[in-house]
């Protein structure tokens, strides 16, 4: 199945964010979910029809956050990457552009590699100088104890034209020795922007990147919950784990 979703967020001129495009085709169904506590941001949930992606899917999500706007994107549940019969690979391509003074929070639920799947998710994020990003990626090797299929997340993030993060997280039969490098569940949360620079005292799993104002929080564990907890702890004292929070009240009470 081919499907596409497009989101465009713009500053509304009154300190808030207006969604000028919210378009999607099944199974990529974006829903505005409002954002009561944080009126400056617009929030969208991808509610995804059937479980997926399925083998043969070619999905695209295109996100633009114009200067000064703040968009939060979430999914309502984990994505289950599943095989098809006959087997065919599935792809998800995410492109995001974030303007100066704009913020994108891409905080989806994990992708689970179901046995036999063959899924590639590619993300290319272009940030203007002065943009802010929180970009979460989590993957889980199979449901319960099943051996995972091939799942690969390829990520490229550029800031002011310079690549600040380039990494591929891969599990499954083609990713030889993956379990010794990632564990059964793994994830990263990339922070880009002024808040990425501050971490005192040093948090071990929060690593400042070399090529820009960015830090990568990384975690592995036996399950998705452990990973999420570690990512949230790594993001403590930033707004990353809680975009609703206001400055001065960054830690959830």
């Amino acid at each position, binding site marked *: 199945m081919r499907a596409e979703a497009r989101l465009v967020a713009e500053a509304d001129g009154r300190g808030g964010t207006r969604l000028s495009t919210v378009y999607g085709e099944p199974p990529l169904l974006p829903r505005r979910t409002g954002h009561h506590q944080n009126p400056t941001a617009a929030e969208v949930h991808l509610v995804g029809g059937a479980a997926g992606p399925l083998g043969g899917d070619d999905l695209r999500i295109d996100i633009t956050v114009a200067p000064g706007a703040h968009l939060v994107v979430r999914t309502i549940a984990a994505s289950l990457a599943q095989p098809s019969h006959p087997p065919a690979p599935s792809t998800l391509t995410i492109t995001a552009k974030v303007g100066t003074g704009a913020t994108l929070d891409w905080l989806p639920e994990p992708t689970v590699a179901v046995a036999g799947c063959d899924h590639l998710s590619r993300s290319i994020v272009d940030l203007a100088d002065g943009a802010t990003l929180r970009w979460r990626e989590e993957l889980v090797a199979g449901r319960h104890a099943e051996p995972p299929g091939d799942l690969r997340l390829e990520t490229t993030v550029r800031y002011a034209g310079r690549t600040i993060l380039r990494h591929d*997280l891969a599990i499954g039969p083609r990713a030889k020795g993956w379990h010794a490098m990632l564990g059964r569940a793994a994830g990263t949360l990339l922070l880009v922007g002024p808040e990425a620079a501050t971490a005192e005292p040093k948090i071990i799993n929060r690593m400042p990147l070399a*090529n820009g104002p960015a830090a990568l929080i990384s975690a592995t564990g036996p399950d998705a919950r452990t990973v999420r907890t570690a990512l949230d702890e790594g993001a403590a004292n930033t707004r990353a784990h809680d975009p609703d929070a206001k400055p001065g009240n960054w830690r959830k009470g």
Partner: protein
Amino acid sequence: MSLSTLLVLADGRLPAGAHAHSGGVEAAVAAGRIHDLPTLESFLVGRTSTSGTAAAAFAAASCRALTTRPVPHARSGDIEAAPLDRARLTALDNGARSAARVESLTDHRGALRDDSVRPAERITALDDGIDARTASPALRAASRAQGRALLRAVARIWPAAVNPAGPNPHHPIATGIAAAAAGLGPREAALTAVYGGLTGAASAAVRLLGLDPYTVHALIARLAPECDRVAADAAARADDPVDDLPAGSAILLDLDAERHATWEVRLFAS
């Protein structure tokens, strides 16, 4: 290409500081994840397919930047990396990166390469590319320390070496510089990088765990064909745009390296 020169460069006794780096093994042993031969094997296989493959690619690309390039020709249809190729094709009609993808495909199909990219700029871009692939500051520092040590050796062994990279390049960049200086090509540079990473980690495990050196070397011999494969692939992609080069991430290596750097007593530098 001189086989014995390749042995000189890939020799674990080359005085380039390798013996003091465990490739993450010291931390993984302390964490209990490596404790015997099977766990060592998983670690080495995983390491080779992630950071080892990236190191090979960057060594090959650096070497290529500093050596005369062969006339580009079409890659034969031996491309197996299905996900990558899907990605390549997907990108052709989509997104900001399509231009770069088209360029890289065009290269392989024999169009004129863009020779305005000078070797020094390519080397700088490659060094940047390793930074973008190395989240852990401790691993970045260890890689640059080893790059510096290798260049120190190169400057004395092959004094005519061309080094546009400054004194502290990442280790794979230094490996490419060393290979070019020694008259070797991208494939040999890649092989030196991936094989050196493999044997360095294996040898640290022998020292730390007292594993039987024969069984560990039998393991290295079993993994040798994988090194050849990784090196051949690295050489085939040596002209690719930096963002397209391998970027396999090993989160546990990053986290281990960060913890290791805080230890009060360490036997290995990394």
